[in-house]
């Protein structure tokens, strides 16, 4: 499916998800990288050992979720924009979701935007909690969204109307 449409299968998505226990402990990274390509900046960006060492630059990222604190530094480092951070502890029925964003307009904190799934369909109206730059040499923005908890693992983009 991914190789025909660009949309990963539910099984692929499930396989890279942290354990339910880890998700209850606070913000944690989710890396939706399913194809072995020659690329390793996620591993070199993380100074906490959250990514296990690459034996080969073509390896898929493998995680030590216990070492990840959900800082999101790897989001802006990933050339494939395939890294997200989810915090399911934010509220009873809301989760925080960090996504990379490289379009205009860059929403402002407090804006309501449309939350899109991996196929670009609108799932919910979501609030932009925080907007930060991925770094002084990197024009990618990192958005923190307040999303319905049931969609924390489905919303992966936004549309600013």
């Amino acid at each position: 499916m991914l190789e025909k449409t660009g949309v990963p299968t539910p099984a692929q998505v499930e396989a890279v998800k942290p354990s339910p226990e880890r998700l209850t402990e606070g913000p944690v990274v989710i890396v939706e990288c399913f194809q072995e390509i020659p690329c390793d900046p996620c591993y070199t960006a993380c100074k906490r050992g959250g990514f296990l060492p690459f034996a080969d630059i073509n390896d898929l990222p493998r995680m030590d979720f216990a070492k990840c604190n959900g800082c999101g530094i790897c989001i802006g480092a990933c050339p494939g924009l395939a890294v997200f951070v989810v915090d399911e502890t934010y509220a009873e029925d809301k989760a925080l979701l960090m996504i990379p964003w490289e379009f205009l307009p860059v929403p402002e904190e407090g804006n309501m935007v449309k939350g899109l799934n991996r196929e670009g369909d609108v799932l919910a109206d979501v609030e932009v909690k925080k907007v930060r730059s991925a770094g002084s040499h990197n024009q990618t923005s990192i958005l923190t969204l307040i999303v319905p908890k049931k969609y924390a693992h489905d919303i992966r983009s936004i549309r600013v109307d």
Partner: protein
Amino acid sequence: MRIQVHPILEFKKGKKISFTYDGITVEGYEGEPIAAALHAAGVRVLSHSRNFKRPRGFWCAIGNCSSCNMRVNGIPNVRTCVEPLQDGMTVETQQGRGVIGGVPGE
């Protein structure tokens, strides 16, 4: 049609200048390719095929394909996708093969 704002890029444009396209005054930026200025002004047909006179536009943008050849300041077969625009240029649709030193329209 020009990009006004871009999430990643800032465009360094030259001085705004004017030139003529088949006798009409058009504005562009100094140093950009002639074809880019024409495209921004909405001109998509740059030349015609020799035998069947089919409209031809921009194609390769690297000066290889000759689809954008026009007559510039009287010189035929100028590759407008790579030729920098200058103030006051006379850009014309070329008929046929073009003649060096010939009269406009030949």
